[in-house]
């Protein structure tokens, strides 16, 4: 039987060790953030945010087209993925024990593990090669496929977590299951679903690999999604491997913008969830 003193020491060691590990994990994130802020802040100015890229070798210019391109590409992806993802989540929540439901859930989980570059290739084969034309739309399609498993999972969880009593109250009034879920349960689950959507957007906002052969990038203003388009994450890549110092600095600046956007989305998702928890009966 160990003495009391040695047990106390073992306890202290254990606690200290777990604290150090947690600190390390947080430190990694903070170091990355700090580094990007330090290196990227130098590039951020009004010109950077509002101008088109300058021709290679000429100082200045900006990533305005990349910012707009990211918004358009992700926006279209949200429009494609949300209805499909949320309705699938609804189906899984309603028929959770069916054989078909289990299959769908499994396939969705498998899909979330497929590398993004593979999905990019799939989008290329489907939407770029047949038309011999790069487009933001094909990138949006790839993004939508990436977002789908996340949306399905979080929507299903959100709908499942609504107390069953509310559904039964609606059913007891003579409503069909589908209508009860759509009109009564879904509105209650909505804040959680939106949170899931924000997290899915954050996931996809920084994806670069699929863009290499779908959106392809562009030095011009482009608002037409059927054309190749500049996207912020792609610009990070292109400028990072460029031999020109000024472009390397801009790569850090674009990376900083992305990080800020992802951070903002995550914070927004948290705020939304907290408001919902406070408003719950």
């Amino acid at each position, binding site marked *: 039987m160990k003495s009391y003193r040695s047990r106390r020491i073992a306890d202290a060691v254990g606690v200290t060790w777990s604290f150090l590990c947690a600190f390390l994990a947080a430190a990694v994130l903070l170091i990355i953030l700090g580094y990007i802020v330090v290196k990227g802040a130098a590039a951020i100015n009004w010109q950077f945010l509002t101008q088109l890229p300058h021709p290679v070798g000429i100082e200045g210019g900006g990533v305005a087209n990349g910012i707009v391109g990211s918004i358009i590409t992700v926006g279209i992806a949200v429009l494609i993925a949300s209805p499909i993802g949320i309705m699938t989540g609804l189906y899984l929540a309603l028929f959770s024990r069916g054989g078909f439901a289990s299959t769908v859930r499994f396939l969705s989980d498998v899909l979330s593990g497929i590398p993004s570059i593979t999905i990019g290739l799939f989008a290329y084969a489907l939407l770029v090669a047949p038309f011999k034309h790069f487009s933001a739309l094909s990138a949006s399609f790839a993004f939508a496929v990436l977002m789908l498993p996340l949306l399905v999972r979080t929507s299903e969880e959100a709908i499942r977590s609504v107390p069953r*009593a*509310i559904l039964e*109250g609606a059913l007891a*009034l*003579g409503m069909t299951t589908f209508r009860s879920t759509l009109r*009564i349960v879904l*509105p209650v689950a909505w804040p959680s679903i939106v949170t899931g959507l924000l997290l899915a957007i954050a996931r996809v906002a920084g994806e670069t690999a699929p863009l290499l052969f779908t959106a392809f990038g562009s030095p011009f203003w482009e608002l037409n999604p059927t054309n190749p388009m500049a996207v912020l994450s792609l610009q990070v890549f292109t400028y990072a491997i460029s031999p020109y110092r000024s472009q390397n600095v801009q790569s850090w600046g674009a990376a900083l913008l992305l990080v800020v956007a992802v951070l903002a989305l995550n914070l927004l998702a948290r705020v939304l969830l907290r408001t919902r928890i406070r408003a719950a*009966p």
Partner: protein
Amino acid sequence: MQAAGEETTAKVQVDDLSVYYGKVAAVKHASLKVHENCVTALIGPSGCGKTTFIRALNRMHDLTPGARVEGRVVLDGIDIYAPNVNPVLLRHKIGMVFQRPNPFPKSIFDNVAYGPRIHGTRNGASLEALVERSLRRAALWNEVKDRLDRSALDLSGGQQQRLCIARVLAVEPEIILMDEPASALDPIATSKIEDLINDLKREYTVIIVTHSMQQAARMSDYTAFFLLGDLVESGPTRDMFTRPSDKRTEDYITGRFG
């Protein structure tokens, strides 16, 4: 086994009803005659099958995976489990109030108006009249008439339960099922609900599950005693509580177990 009943109309006749969850029988071969415009109380210790029984009367088990119902429940001459019966329309005729109040997270008005809206009433004026009538019948109108637009979730537990009753009344059912409607409420709210039920039986047929024998003795016309899935005995409340036919009933009522 039924004690001699009065000769009122049978609104619902339950014949040999059995409910299985998977292989386990929660209700075994229960038969009961439910009289019109009367309050029928279902009593028995926890887990005896009374909630399962009452939920079989509006086909709520259709939504439970793995649940199987055998036997007949005849309402106005039609077996509600017949293949051509639409359970959605059935629940229009047989309403249900649950143990815990479950108002929708909407305004008081929208809660009560929801049922009629889906069943086709769209006219603003008739909806308002219907909502008022239902809230009056549920003894809630005076307390909420000035704040119909406020969220139903702001009401107290007792008020929420009366709102749920108003919600059921708004679809104008013939039968109201109540699964321990006052068990989550304080004594004052409980007595309000009991008074309400006494009023309701003039126009509706009420079946109520209750944990409290005293409550059953206070407000029901007929009582059915359940034990471990069997409907042991049923009959007029007065007879059940003064001279029960079955020893198990007598033991439960005198408090020897339960």
